[in-house]
């Protein structure tokens, strides 16, 4: 386990505001920004993409960790397939206004997914449903709930928690929890 973490058997919910509730017939997922071509999928189109089962430990910056969590969804590599990125960073943007930023290298090469199922059932709104980003090698605030798209950026653009006291990258094995918090 990463330093400073403890195991939990339940699944805590942490958010900054009310839970967004996005009807599937209005849902879409986009890739845009500094890319050779943008992409957009409706819910039906997204569900038709090649899918994977993912089983990983997850680590929250508030010190809880959960082992062997099981998800299914679409690899970000699949979503970016054939697209030429013109920048080295992405910003995940979400219903409700949440954003988080990551290096492109942290969401490619089999490290990240957009998941819509948890433990074999549709992802509940409280846990980010209809779909969330899953980036288990970083603190779980990077696994943006209610995700609706990834915008490729040339410059690293701090997202919501990164602007509110948390580390820019969030590697749990280096305990990269916090940024400048005292304002």
């Amino acid at each position: 386990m990463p330093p400073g973490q403890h195991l939990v058997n339940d699944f805590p919910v942490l958010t900054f505001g009310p839970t967004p509730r996005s009807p599937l017939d209005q849902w879409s997922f986009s890739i845009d920004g500094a890319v050779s071509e943008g992409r957009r999928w409706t819910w039906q189109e997204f569900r038709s993409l090649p899918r994977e089962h993912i089983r990983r430990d997850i680590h929250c910056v508030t010190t809880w960790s959960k082992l062997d969590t099981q998800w299914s969804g679409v690899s970000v590599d699949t979503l970016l397939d054939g697209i030429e990125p013109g920048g080295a960073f992405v910003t995940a943007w979400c219903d409700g206004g949440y954003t988080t930023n990551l290096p492109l290298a942290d969401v490619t090469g089999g490290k990240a997914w957009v998941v819509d199922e948890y433990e074999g059932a549709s992802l509940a709104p409280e846990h980010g449903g209809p779909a969330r980003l899953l980036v288990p090698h970083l603190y779980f605030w990077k696994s943006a709930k209610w995700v609706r798209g990834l915008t490729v950026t040339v410059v690293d653009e701090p997202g919501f928690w990164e602007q509110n006291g948390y580390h820019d990258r969030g590697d749990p094995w280096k305990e990269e929890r916090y940024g400048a918090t005292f304002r």
Partner: protein
Amino acid sequence: MSDPVAAAHDWRPARVVERRDETPRAATLRLAVDGWRGHVAGQRVDVRLTADDGYQATRQYSIASAPSSGALELTVERLDDGEVSPYLVDVAEVGDAMDIRGPIGGWFTWRPGDPGPLLLVGGGSGIVPLMAMAREAVLSGGDAVDVRLLVSTRTPADLLYASELEALHDARRITLLHTVTRDPTGARSGRIDAQLVGELLRGVAPEAVFACGSTGFVEAASDLLLAAGVPAGVIRTERFGPSA
């Protein structure tokens, strides 16, 4: 010159300098922390305990004290299956050592001068960060800030800071709306309703509403606030504990 980024990462040695019971299940610890530079109401700290054999456990707790008081106080409620809270509530005494990291958090915060009334909705121990905000408003703003606190607890005896809150309410420094649920199964952590939310919001245009408690409580409070017409972006939430 101190580096705020390094400061946020540092563990600082701390000692308990005062301890008092709040309810049968909760206690407040006042801490002296090496190099502490203060906090903003609503922020939290990481608390790390080290056992004699070197085993360490870390948890987060909201700061209960007002920044202007100059004190750092945590109110901890005992979780029956908790690893750290039973120690902090039942065993920790004046002179005991621990490590503190923080203060942490930049969204669920309130400072004197922030616009609008101070609207607070708490369930159970979710009242702790809200109390820091209310105390700061009273200490720094006098009658200038309209402080309204809607709090739900299982029983009257579970209300943290009851006598302080009632005194502030009687002195018209805050408006206290307190509700209890008597659900015998204990399955729900509080029963606020549209009428109470309406009283909380009466006659004001909310700029921020702070809701804190278990995730079930915060979901219910958010839904009621949204139904009352509060924009989603105005509602700031902090949740403790497991899903539902």
